[in-house]
């Protein structure tokens, strides 16, 4: 059996160009791997027929870009025309969108091949992907562990090398945290870098789509493909798209790096801190300077996140009322019954919990006490980060306080899982880009990741550092999962 999908995008591209392989070889291999690893539960919907058809069509086309013919998986909260998009919810179990998200159009423009839709937390609400209506995806490094969330299916399928590329979304760490748990590269770009049009909204002021890949270079390539202003998204930036690979391979000598003290405090597992320390030393040895700093209110970010994200979510999810699309309860007695039962039966517990808390937080005086106050403190966090970036090129630290934990752990404590995201959420609060790059394993051989945070639109510099670390460590991140 072939193992083309273990190669880098550049290597696959050379084979395609030299006509040694065809796109259909990649697609068939992807489905074979997916079938052999169906226990990972990484996908909700597969698009076998169309993917094979598209691969055949591409045989007569010129291989005109690096991403041509590469199989890609899409998180299931990004709408795909004619391809079921569920948000991992019973509410959208039968939902076939009639339009494409802007990122999906961009992917099709580059002639990538969409393989299927990835499992996730219901409406991206969760840190473990266990709130999925379709059951949790598993961590390929240890199938008794969570893949993380909410982009757990995307992380799982990349870590298992089922496909080389995936899209995730990150509202409060949902790309970086599962990437860290699964040992892959994941980037949450600057808010506004990638169009949100067609991303089913969870928290509009925080949501951002980003690439999840096996290595840094491929990640930058995919970001190149999906970035750019979109007239359909007023929050998307007019800033020109740069080549995000352009600094990969450059020296890091003289780079000024900061580590927030909070990121290395007692809340983080010792094994993870040790690994990050090793990286700090590696960077120092190679001519970078590393300083410890404080970011104001960073320790309050989770609380702010809960207020802002749940408030926005309670409004964003109001449209699922059983009137126009999605689940609609049987034989409603009247309008109120339609609303109540549709939402009662269509949403899972975590989603309902967040809608209720969010509605409460926006009610009457609470809007001023909580929501508006949270927005103010969020501004202060942004300013504090800005101040740091006036002095430093990049900020680093761990992405998670622990490695991936047991699939059954912490299930009875819904607020505990928010603490999984304590280190990734500040980045969303400030709208900054943040990424994960694997830096090693713990004693159980579970992946540990490093978070790199950049100033707005400094993704290229982040890739520069990530690629440097990746090359120096040269970790064996290949999981022997293909049976």
């Amino acid at each position, binding site marked *: 059996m072939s193992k083309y999908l273990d190669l880098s995008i550049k290597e696959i591209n050379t084979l395609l160009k030299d006509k040694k392989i065809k796109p259909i070889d990649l697609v068939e291999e992807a489905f074979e791997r997916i079938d052999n690893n169906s226990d990972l539960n990484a996908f909700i919907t597969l698009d076998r027929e169309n993917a094979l058809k598209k691969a055949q069509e591409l045989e007569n086309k010129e291989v005109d870009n690096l991403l041509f013919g590469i199989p890609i998986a899409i998180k299931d909260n990004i709408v795909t025309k004619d391809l079921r998009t569920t948000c991992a919810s019973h509410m*959208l179990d039968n939902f076939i969108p009639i339009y494409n998200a802007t990122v999906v159009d961009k992917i099709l423009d580059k002639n990538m091949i969409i393989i299927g839709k990835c499992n996730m937390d219901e409406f991206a609400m969760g840190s473990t992907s266990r709130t999925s209506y379709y059951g949790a995806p598993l961590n390929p490094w240890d199938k008794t562990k969570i893949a993380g969330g909410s982009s757990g299916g995307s992380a799982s399928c990349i870590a298992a090398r089922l496909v080389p590329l995936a899209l995730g979304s990150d509202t409060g760490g949902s790309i970086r945290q599962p990437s860290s748990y699964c040992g892959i590269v994941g980037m949450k770009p600057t808010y506004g870098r990638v169009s949100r049009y*067609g991303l*089913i909204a969870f928290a*509009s002021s925080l949501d951002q789509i980003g690439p999840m890949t096996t290595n840094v270079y491929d990640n930058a390539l995919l970001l190149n493909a999906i970035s750019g202003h979109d007239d359909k998204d007023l*929050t998307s930036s007019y800033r020109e798209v740069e080549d995000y690979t352009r600094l990969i391979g450059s020296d890091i000598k003289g780079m000024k790096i900061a580590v927030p003290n909070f990121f290395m405090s007692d809340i983080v597992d010792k094994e993870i801190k040790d690994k990050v320390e090793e990286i700090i030393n590696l960077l120092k040895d190679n001519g970078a300077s590393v300083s410890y700093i404080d970011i104001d209110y960073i320790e309050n970010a989770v609380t702010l996140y809960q207020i802002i994200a749940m408030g926005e979510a309670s*409004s964003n999810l109001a449209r699922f009322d059983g009137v*126009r699309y999605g689940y609609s309860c049987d034989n409603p007695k009247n309008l109120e019954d339609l609303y109540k039962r549709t939402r009662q039966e269509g949403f899972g517990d975590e989603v309902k919990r967040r809608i209720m808390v969010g509605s409460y937080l*926006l009610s*009457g005086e609470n809007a001023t006490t909580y929501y508006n106050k949270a927005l103010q403190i969020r501004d202060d966090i942004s300013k504090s980060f800005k101040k740091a970036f006036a002095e430093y090129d990049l900020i680093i630290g761990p992405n998670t306080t622990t490695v991936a934990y047991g699939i059954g752990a912490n299930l009875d404590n819904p607020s505990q899982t928010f603490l999984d995201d304590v280190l990734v959420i500040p980045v969303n609060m400030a709208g900054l880009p943040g990424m994960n790059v694997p830096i090693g394993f713990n004693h159980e051989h579970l992946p540990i990741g490093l978070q790199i945070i950049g100033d707005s639109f400094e993704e290229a510099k982040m890739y520069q550092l990530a690629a440097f670390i990746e090359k120096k460590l040269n970790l064996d991140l290949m999981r022997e999962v293909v049976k």
Partner: protein
Amino acid sequence: MSEYKTTVGIEVHAELKTNTKIFSSSCNGYANMANTHVNVVDLGYPGTLPTLNAEVIVKAIRASHVLNCKINKKMHFDRKNYFYPDLPKGYQITQARTPIGVDGYVEIEVDGTKKKIGIHDIHIEEDTCKSIHYNNSSLLDFNRAGVPLVEIVTKPDMSSSKEAVLYLEKLRELLLYADVSDCKIEEGSMRCDVNVSVSKSSVLGTRIEIKNIGSISNVGLAIDSEVKRQIELLESGNTLHEETRRYDEKSNTTVLMRVKETGNDYRYFPEADIPYVILDDTYIDNVIQHLPMLSSTRREIYLKRGINPVNVDKIIQNRKISDYLNRYLDKNINLVMASNLLLGDIASYLNKNSTSMDETCFNEEKFIQVVNMLDKGDMSSKIFKEILNDLFESNESIDNLLNKHGISKMSDDDLKAIIKNIIDNNQDNVTQYKSGNERILKYFVGQVMKETKGSADPVLVNKYLLEELSK
């Protein structure tokens, strides 16, 4: 009961006359079929995002300007959250905290005294879709979903139905002439909700809202009947509760719709999908400079050009007539004559045939010619009436039309000859005239007009008759 004081505040929703909807590229306009001006954004489809139509901002700035409001230069949108089938997203995008215009006024004239009605604010929002209740089910037409609106909220500054009606008429005129809205209440492009309370003291009474009244005159009737109802209830010892009522035209009474629930909570919060809109002075000034000529300016000009106040009001009430008349402001014609024609025979013809000047053969050149002929006495109004239909329906020149009707323009010599002939053949009457019976002159004029089939200029007829009779 005369000691009760009435207090009225009015909320008006006006649909903005834009090409596309406020947050999507769907057409904003009349559609024959339900759900044809609709796209995924209007349906609140998952994943869709609003865009912002710049035309809406322009029209809302215009509205703020003519209502003398201060303009919010940094404004954002808010979400108003509630569940209803006509609200596709489960929230309405509106402006709660930073309305585009605040603190303005509309000046009305009540029995010769000027009064300013305060405008609390004017804000931009999207319309909901239209529910049509049919048998036991409700049908939804999304053509209206996302149509841009401005909501104009007054302060409780009106103290009678008369003031309310005057305010609405004035408001309608202001919005119409600023090209903000076509303000057709009957078609729903202008909708009025009225808040009415009565009180014997300086403390305002319980506020009752009357929703969606179908015409400006009905607003007056609704207020009068509501005031009467409230006073009767209070006088018989009842307490009023805040409620929403509607006006029933047949019985001329207001009817309860629903009692207001306390703490109706719309959970307003800033709309994160639309960034702050920053309006700089240059932008605002540019919008204001490009306003069409406002009604106040038109009034001034018309009065100055000698049109009587009653006719000026009639012209202003009909934007089409005013716009047409304005084409001739800098042409050398008698504007009084022109406005008389437009309000009189021309208006009747256009109404009867449901058409407009530009759709007929009566072009600007002919209009100028006709006005000038009438003005100089080269054509009598009788002849004008005679050729009126042809002016609209035939491409022929005015001279040809006159010929066709057997009316040729008469030379002075011809006219003098006719006059001489009539005098020669009526010597008896000449004698009577000369002996002091001046009424005989009228008889002669009549004879001349009869002979000339009315084509002679009465002024000239008089002049030549006198000359001939004095010989």
